[in-house]
């Protein structure tokens, strides 16, 4: 297997296009002459009854071709992915600032803006709930509650030697994909549409557009070439803008382009869910957790979107990597008058883990133990310490192994001692260090979504097109799929073209989400390619005079095992197959076996497996300003047998820095009227290059083959995001050095310089 690209470094499949500017995104596409542009007319208020909506004057603005409201929707006015609670265009009431009231279709964005100003919208204000705590206090909730329980948690807490209680809030986060939402809708014959969408979920865009227009899905085809970043923000919410563009096509008969500027994107779309939790925890004096009781609420915004599944994943990760003997978890989605919050890398997992990590930190600080050691003592282990709160058995937990290896390679103990010495002698600067483990469940928790398809086409010249259901948003999925296909067919990756994701190639796909893209689509691509290789082996076997099982495909050559005889070029075999009237296209399909979850009981096996990792993070804090820096990060991450290690490293580094942003510098500030004040990079600060630690070491766990996943690999998209929780623990270590011994550290997230200075000054 010397010439397979599998498990080998590779650049990104589109890298040359990226660096030359030739890679095209939706708004870069050459649109036909006559293409119009569309813009949303957003609600200016958080909650109101619409008493008058008159677009007559707006329609008369020069250059305007249509101004459409709910009354102009031919099909169903609903864009919700699950709950049917989200009209595409407002009807009767508006529920948040930025909600679409109408859409203008015009010859220029300037005309759109002029028309939006001419829309007569009269509103009768209604009471608005603008933040999560207010919603919890008011009982403003949506959807069912979710509970998990084990043992007698109250008794365990009552008898615990160390008891902690408190509340914890994790903030929202804007996706800040560099490419904002965009769609280009083109009319086809007989009322059909062809839509280019910047979406992680083309099948859902297809389904929602068809519903909105009252068409069968066969009349709508959706294509995604690539996205300029997604991170969950384009899992459901791209459908809105595609549907608005499609409505525009229906109304005008002309192609319609929609593209959001940054302010529109940030004010009109949902974000990571803020969570508010109330907790009680009990520990023994050695730092073992005995009981854990958590009530948590997710800020769903004004409609459900994916909030239920996000809440579920929060509950599934309130344990992180720790065995909790007795527990009660309660979760519910709150409803506020803010844009509907949506998927974002980690999907509730980070918010759940943040709670248990706060508790671990407080316990360690209370007990005077190294927080890393407290974590180690609580890892899942052998039965009975191998059952999650929802009764899935954690098989062969890798936490302890990763912990031991990373402590060693990061020189943790020595550095911790050095930091203590530094802190004792440094007045203005203090340092901190922490180890952060992660265990993250892999599978869509809505089990039916765990399926994928592929369509592989081989042309007689031996060149190959691979279609699969996953979308490319930068994560390197196409690079991995090309690798899987090249390995299966024994060709060079350059012989393969991974096609734009299209609903007319692979139908009924799931979103590229839940870190599952490579697992699910990889298995489907592999199956399709192996089917084709089987057919080609028959053909080649005849030529080579060996049984099909003895035919080897490798590096673009086909030969008999042993390599002694004649070598055929792959293209010779495909040409021979064509002449022999052998089919050179095949589909592949995969569904994840043996997963299920009973939400009522709070028990089941929702995950196919767990991904693991750990980070050691060192920070420095300036006690005069609260400014802080990450000095060094060491990560040891479990990606199984990496399909493409360079791609996985990129995912790990990128996820860590995105998590760092969530926890330290990204701050969503909303005013008393529910208007987002931080709606562009001027005021909303994602990490810049300087935030990347100068010393950033990433290693992949070796000897970590994952059974029952394509080529022994593991999902990587989300799990490393949560490694950044170690930044908070390290900051607490540094902050504690400014405080009297034994003082509680009150550090909120995001740990902005202001938050850190407050913690340092006890203010």
């Amino acid at each position, binding site marked *: 297997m010397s010439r397979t690209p599998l498990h080998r470094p590779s650049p*990104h499949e*589109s*890298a*040359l296009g*990226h*660096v*030359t*500017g*030739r890679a095209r*995104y939706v*708004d*870069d596409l050459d649109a036909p002459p006559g293409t119009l542009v569309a813009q949303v007319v957003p609600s200016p208020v958080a909650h109101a009854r619409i008493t008058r909506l008159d677009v007559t004057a707006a329609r008369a603005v020069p250059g305007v071709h249509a101004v459409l409201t709910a009354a102009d929707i031919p099909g169903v006015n609903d864009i919700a992915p699950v709950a049917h609670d989200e009209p595409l265009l407002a009807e009767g009431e508006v529920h948040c600032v930025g909600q679409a009231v109408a859409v203008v279709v015009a010859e220029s964005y300037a005309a759109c*803006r002029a028309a939006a100003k001419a829309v007569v919208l009269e509103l009768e204000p209604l009471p608005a709930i603008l933040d999560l705590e207010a919603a919890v206090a008011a009982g403003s909730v949506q959807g069912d509650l979710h509970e998990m329980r084990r043992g007698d948690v109250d008794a365990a807490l009552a008898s615990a030697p160390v008891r902690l209680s408190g509340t914890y809030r994790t903030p929202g986060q804007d996706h*800040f994909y*560099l*490419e904002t939402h965009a769609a280009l809708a083109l009319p086809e014959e007989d009322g059909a549409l062809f839509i280019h969408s910047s979406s992680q979920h083309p099948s859902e865009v297809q389904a929602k557009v068809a519903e909105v227009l009252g068409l069968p899905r066969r009349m709508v085809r959706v294509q995604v070439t690539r996205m*300029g*970043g*997604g991170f969950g923000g384009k899992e459901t919410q791209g459908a809105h803008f595609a549907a608005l563009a499609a409505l525009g096509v229906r109304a005008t008969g002309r192609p319609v382009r929609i593209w959001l*500027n*940054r302010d529109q994107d940030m004010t009109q779309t949902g974000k990571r869910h803020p969570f508010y939790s109330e907790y009680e925890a009990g520990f023994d004096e050695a730092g073992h957790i005995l009981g854990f009781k958590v009530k948590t609420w997710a800020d769903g915004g004004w409609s459900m979107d994916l909030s239920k599944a996000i809440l579920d994943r929060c509950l599934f990760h309130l344990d992180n990597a720790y065995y909790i003997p007795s527990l009660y978890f309660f979760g519910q989605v709150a409803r506020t008058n803010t844009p509907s919050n949506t998927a974002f890398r980690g999907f509730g997992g980070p918010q759940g883990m943040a709670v248990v990590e706060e508790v671990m930190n407080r316990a360690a600080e209370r007990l005077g133990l190294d927080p890393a050691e407290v974590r180690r003592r609580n890892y899942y282990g052998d039965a009975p310490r191998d059952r999650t709160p929802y009764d899935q058995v954690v098989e062969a937990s890798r936490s302890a192994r990763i912990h031991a290896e990373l402590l060693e390679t990061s020189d943790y103990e020595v550095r911790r001692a050095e930091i203590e010495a530094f802190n004792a*002698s*440094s*007045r*203005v*600067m203090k340092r901190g260090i922490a180890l952060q483990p992660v265990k993250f469940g892999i599978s869509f928790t809505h089990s039916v979504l765990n399926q994928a398809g592929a369509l592989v086409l081989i042309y007689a010249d031996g060149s190959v097109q691979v279609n699969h259901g996953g979308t490319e948003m*930068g*994560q390197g999925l196409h690079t991995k799929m090309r690798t899987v296909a090249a390995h299966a067919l024994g060709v060079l990756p350059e012989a393969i073209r991974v096609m734009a994701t299209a609903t007319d190639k692979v139908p009924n796909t799931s979103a590229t989400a839940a870190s599952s893209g490579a697992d699910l689509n990889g298995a489907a691509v592999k199956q399709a390619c192996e089917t084709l290789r089987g057919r080609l082996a028959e053909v080649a076997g005849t030529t080579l005079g060996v049984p099909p099982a003895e035919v080897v495909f490798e590096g673009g050559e086909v030969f008999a095992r042993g390599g002694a005889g004649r070598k055929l070029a792959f293209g010779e075999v495909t040409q021979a197959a064509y002449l022999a009237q052998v089919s050179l296209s095949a589909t592949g399909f995969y569904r994840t076996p043996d997963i299920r979850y009973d939400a009522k009981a709070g028990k089941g096996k929702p995950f196919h497996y767990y991904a693991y990792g750990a980070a050691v993070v060192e920070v420095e804090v*300036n006690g*005069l*300003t*609260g*400014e*802080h*820096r990450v000095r060094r990060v060491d990560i040891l991450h479990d990606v199984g047998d990496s399909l493409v290690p*360079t791609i996985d490293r*990129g995912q790990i*580094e*990128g996820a*860590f*820095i995105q998590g760092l942003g969530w926890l330290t*510098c990204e*701050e969503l500030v909303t005013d008393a009227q529910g208007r987002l*004040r*931080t709606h*562009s*990079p*001027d*005021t909303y*600060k994602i990490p*810049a*290059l*300087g*935030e990347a630690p100068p010393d*950033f070491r990433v290693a992949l766990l070796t000897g970590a083959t994952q059974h029952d996943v394509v080529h022994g690999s593991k999902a990587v998209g989300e799990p490393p995001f949560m490694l950044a929780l170690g930044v908070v623990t390290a900051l607490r270590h540094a902050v504690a050095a400014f405080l009297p011994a034994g003082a509680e550290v009150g550090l909120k997230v995001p740990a*902005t*310089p*202001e938050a850190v*200075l407050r913690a340092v*000054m006890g203010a």
Partner: protein
Amino acid sequence: MNRIAFTLNGQPREVVDASPNLTLLQWLRGPAGLPGTKEGCAEGDCGACTVVLVEPEALGGPAYRAVNACLVLLPMVHGRAVYTVEGLADGDRPHPAQAALIEQLGSQCGYCTPGVVMSMFEACYRTDLDEDWKLDDQMCGNLCRCTGYRPIRDAARQVAGTRPADAFSAALAEARPEPRALSYEGAGGRFFMPEDWAGLWAARAAAPDAVLVNGGTDVCLRITKGFEVLPALISLEALAPLRALEAHPDGSLFIGAGVHLSDLEAFARDHSPAVERMLRFFGARQIKNRGTVGGNLCNASPIGDLAPIFLALGAVAHARGPGGARTIPLDAFFTAYRQTALAPDEILEAVSVPAPPAGDVRVVAYKVSKRQELDISAVSAGLWVRLEDGVVAEARFAFGGMAATPARAARAEALALGKPWTEATARAAAAGLDLDFAPLDDHRGSAWYRGTVAKNLLVGFFLETEGGSGAPRLPYRPTGTVQVVAS
């Protein structure tokens, strides 16, 4: 005249009848058919639209300069050479900046990548990337949401300062200033770019309501974010007298209002470490390559980052109008929120910094913001004391972000005067800041934070300069702008 002429990726281009409010980015993506350059924010904060201009008159000789195309109006490139991401590869052979990014996997989604490439392209041909922090500064104006930056930093380091012997190096060597005078009308708008005083006064007479613009990093936001139409603009960027940059033997400085902040940064390295220190935390490379000293001061924002350090240095503003020139002490220059003492027909010509007095002078500039790179200050400060026998003989404590204008802290200064320069004195003076200021309270920082940090900066200033004159040089990546090394 209704013709804008420039070169694009080495080819001469002419544009006629375009609105002078059209940005270079809009023109590239639209009429020019070059969508490689992306819009990520339209406000100069993300760098996805980064392109490169040749700056024939850069300090130290002709240079490539990365700029945000979203904040460049098309007439501003008249007489210039522009390069975009489409113009770098030699056929199918990528430019070294592109090749390094591919090799390091510095692109994931690819949307920020064209801008990253162009910033790396500037880095490739820079001759002064001699300290690690400058590389971070070079690249910090390019936000990337995918990679976590490690591969981008590694790729940039790989090519920085390599100055390959290629067509771009040759083009740079041949770059000469082109005539840039422009009096343009198109699509109902006017754009004047005079090269001398007479031309400026004529333009102002012809268009009395015209908006003055220099680098455009602030004015253009009115167009790209506020969707205003500015029917007449007068650009000062071709006005030769504004580019003066002089260091005199007595240590005094004369800094033209049109000097780009990147040139001021290079100049300050040799002539004013305190100013250099502020510029290290100032904007991003793309902003510094277009933003000017005069723009930063005349904008008169409460948090204009040059103002506090210039106030602390006792700088003087030089105003000029059709009737002549006059000077205004900088502490009388900022009259109210975004208001200056300039008369309606005057412009800022320069700012001068007096020769430092002999003896024990200590001065530091600080800037504290939510994010260290490319962020607007929560608090900025320029702190200056002159000691005689360890006693404060003169003090100038100037702050940004603390009031409606950048301002000196009179009470705090008074509390320090005549006292031995000790930590106790610094703390006592800091307490005076509560009387001097009622700080802003917004999403960049609460009033509590601003007030507390301002006081702490004064203490930090003492601690940092305790050993004697000046301040320690900052390391590659300081944790915060205050650098107290010793306990």
